[in-house]
């Protein structure tokens, strides 16, 4: 998937947790092998080229494509796996894979974990007894600053933006790069939807504000191209910056 994953486990290291960590890492490698669009021989690449049908793909592929369809409906088409003309579910796969990796750890007794997939996070439990997780949101304009800090327990945090690699999200309706917002952060419970909603909200631009405000179970924060910020009513961030 062209990114790096990390695990931060705050629970005691037990043999069961260590074993689950190995399973979670193996799971991510497996997901990469199945879904990578960088690998010409991955089932998803072969499916995109029409060499194999969905029935010949691992069952995970159908699961992800169904999820993509559901998210596509929930976002009025703003989340799309075919925006660039091909088939590219990687926009959803990363968050989904991270969330499942966190579930693998939880099933083994690791209840306080941060699984990070390239800056999109699934957080379980809390950072320390009585201490919520504190997640800095990178400021898209001001080198060196976090634009806010999200605080909470059992949450997912995803940020979509252009700060680091230029415009990389396409408007699924026009196929051109979107430019309205500098970055948008979505906070929810499940990284699968939270990450996809962040992508969709970024593509929406200014319209994301009303859309996020009307969305159950998710809150949003955005930095506009002109530097202005807005957030939804229940956004669990520190007002006025991190310090």
């Amino acid at each position, binding site marked *: 998937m062209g990114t790096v994953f990390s695990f931060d486990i705050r629970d005691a290291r037990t043999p069961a947790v260590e074993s689950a960590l*190995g399973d979670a890492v193996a799971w991510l490698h497996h997901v990469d092998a199945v879904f990578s669009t960088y690998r010409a021989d991955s089932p998803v690449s072969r499916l995109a080229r029409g060499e194999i049908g969905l029935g010949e793909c691992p069952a995970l592929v159908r699961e992800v494509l169904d999820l993509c369809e559901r998210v596509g409906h929930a976002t009025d088409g703003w989340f799309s796996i075919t925006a660039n003309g091909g088939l590219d579910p990687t926009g959803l796969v990363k968050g989904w894979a991270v969330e499942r990796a966190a579930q693998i750890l939880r099933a083994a007794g690791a209840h306080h974990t941060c699984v990070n997939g*390239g800056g999109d996070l699934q957080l379980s439990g809390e950072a320390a007894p009585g201490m919520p997780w*504190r*997640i800095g949101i990178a400021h898209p304009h001001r080198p060196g600053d976090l634009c806010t800090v999200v605080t909470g327990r059992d949450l997912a945090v995803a940020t979509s933006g252009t700060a680091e*690699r230029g415009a990389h999200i396409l408007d699924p309706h026009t196929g051109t790069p979107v430019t309205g917002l500098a970055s948008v952060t979505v906070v929810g419970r499940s990284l699968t939807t939270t990450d996809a909603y962040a992508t969709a909200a970024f593509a929406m631009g200014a319209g994301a504000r009303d859309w996020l405000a009307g969305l159950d179970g998710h809150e949003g924060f955005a930095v506009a191209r002109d530097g202005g910020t807005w957030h939804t009513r229940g956004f669990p961030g520190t007002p006025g910056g991190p*310090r």
Partner: protein
Amino acid sequence: MRRAVLTAASTSALVVLLLSLKPHQPAGLTGDLAQGGSAPSPSPTSRPPHGTHPANGTYTGAPVDTQYGTVQVAATVHAGRLTAVKVLHAPSDNGRDQEIAAYALPRLTQEALSAHSAAIDAVSGASYTSAGYIRSLQSALDRAGV
């Protein structure tokens, strides 16, 4: 107030930062973090025992290959605190890479330092090159023994 508390508790704040940087088991990366990279420049004789300050000095991280090129940083540690990060290598194959590196790398450096002062557990909104940056920084901190 908070800042004063953090200054007084600088060691534990650093521990928080390191916990956030440290993948307790890097996802299949152990090999390339274990090899490569130059020796720590202040040449500490051995890794300091757990619970003590690492030696002051600058520690070079392992070079980390990303999709866009190699990233390598050096971390300066003083009294157990991360005080500076210097970028030794960054993708520079073309003008676009150079433009991004000029913009993103100072930002990442400041982020690493402000992450420290803001006592946060992780940063949302980074990707690609920053992942290489963080891995190289982590390996520098590992060499520092912190």
